[in-house]
């Protein structure tokens, strides 16, 4: 009970910090512009002649997040380290876990807000046709879980360094691997090796593979578990890094 209070206190502060700086507004505007542009122009929303958001809208999310989520997560710990407030935060009567979870939740809620603000796309598709809103909702949930997985990885890289730029680049590379592991061209190459088990193993690590199900409107517990375990594992790694960094 008390520990969730502490988590919430941290979350509130972090959320406040996002909106104190222009970063939050810039991020949201860029995200919405990208969504709109890719859905209606590149994604060929109108040419498809179908009331669905799966291909034109959600297909782009793994790629948007590749750049945008590390940008949201990069300051979480790197900034604390640079300014020295980490010493303040970790000597408060809270556990490191409460701080880690609080910070993660703040950024994740922020990403949720950005996602929610794409609602005009949903309205548009509902105005023009008769889409399956259940599928859209599932895909939104999947998209949010995927963003959480990226974000948790950004937490690790942010805890590793005091430079936000370094954190951004490393987490971008790691997230790129998570995408490419399920990217069709990569899978094709792997398939030529004639090792189906290897292909299965590699693709099972990809966010693409697991996001696919959500896009179809399927809530598979394995997919949910995948994203949640990436988040859990990454946050755990973050706590280990914070501890060992302090130990010198």
């Amino acid at each position, binding site marked *: 009970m008390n520990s969730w209070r502490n988590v919430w206190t941290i979350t509130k502060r972090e959320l*406040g*910090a996002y909106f104190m700086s222009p970063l939050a507004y810039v991020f949201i505007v860029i995200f919405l512009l990208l969504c709109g542009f890719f859905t209606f122009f590149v994604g060929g929303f109108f040419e498809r002649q179908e009331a669905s958001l799966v291909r034109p809208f959600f297909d782009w999310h793994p790629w948007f997040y590749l750049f945008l989520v590390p940008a949201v997560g990069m300051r979480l710990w790197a900034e604390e380290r640079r300014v*020295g*407030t980490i010493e*303040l935060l970790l*000597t408060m*009567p*809270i556990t490191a876990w409460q701080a880690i979870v609080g910070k993660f939740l703040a950024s994740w809620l922020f990403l949720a807000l950005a996602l929610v603000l794409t609602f005009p796309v949903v309205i548009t598709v509902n105005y023009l046709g008769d889409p399956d809103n259940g599928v859209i909702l599932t895909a939104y949930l999947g998209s949010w879980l995927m963003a959480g997985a990226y974000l948790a990885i950004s937490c690790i890289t942010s805890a590793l360094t005091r430079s936000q730029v370094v954190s951004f680049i490393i987490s971008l590379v790691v997230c790129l691997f998570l995408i490419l592991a399920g990217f069709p061209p990569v899978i094709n190459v792997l398939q030529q090796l004639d090792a189906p088990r290897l292909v299965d193993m590699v693709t099972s690590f990809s966010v693409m593979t697991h996001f696919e199900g959500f896009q179809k409107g399927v809530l598979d517990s394995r997919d949910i578990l995948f994203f949640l375990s990436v988040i859990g594992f990454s946050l755990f790694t973050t706590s280990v890094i914070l501890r060992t960094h302090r*130990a010198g």
Partner: protein
Amino acid sequence: MIKVQNLAKVFGTKRAVDDVSFSVGRGEVLGFLGPNGAGKSTTIRMITGFLPPSGGTATVGGFDIVEEPIQARRLIGYLPENAPAYTDMTVHGFLKFTAEIRGLRGDARKKAVSRVVEMCFLEAVLHQSVETLSKGFRHRTCFAQSIIHDPDVLVLDEPTDGLDPNQKHEVRQLIRRMGEKKAIIFSTHILEEVDAVCSRAIIIDRGKIVANGTPQELRQKSEWAGAVTLRVKGVASSAVTAKLYQVPLVKRVTVVDDKGGHVTVRAFPKSGANGALAQAIGEAAHDWQIEQLQAEEGRLDEVFRSITMPDTAKEVAQ
């Protein structure tokens, strides 16, 4: 309130803190002295729970800092070195946040915030972003954060660093006032501060405690403690030193100044002279024309140097 036992910290192969033990009770202000890089901040960071110790333990209010860190940290107010504060918050927001994380809610939080705002003179900048504050104000903001829950134990790492003389004075007054009811540790390398504020001082060098006592006791360790400065007129300096060496309590005599017939010498006492040297010298010099006869108090800076310098000198020689 604070009990430190055989605390040690090893970074790689370097022993930053080596077997440090001391305790601080309520109503005590402990000055933590030492040259830069002596291990002051490392010791403080272990006590506040930021760094895990490599060896030894510390307890705060009876709570072990490793076994029961949360309870121990609740009792501590901490001002880290360089006074960090969230730059993306206003002063008011920052204080509200720290009060909340210290478990203060609602009315209690409001009261706590307005109390420290008043104590640290922060009204003028209350709604300003921390980023835009001058160093003095940022320092005071972080200091306000450390006393917001009225802690029993206050740990301050160089609380007057980078402040102007007026602000230094204010902070010292504040520490002294609060020292009456709390246990306070503060680190510094400014010696005048020790005299102004501390009830006890520890000198630490290369991770080890090399002196521990009241400022008065430390001063006694000085060669200067009990030394006598004598200025006479119309006598040769050689005659003065020769005569003074005949005084049984005198260990060493140095000529400070010898100009225009005025001779100034300083006589250092043997151990156990206990301040009787001035009288003995006064008697020995009774047939000269004495212009000045002064017993010296010990000097802290000299004690500090004599304790911490030999090591540094050796290091340079290597």
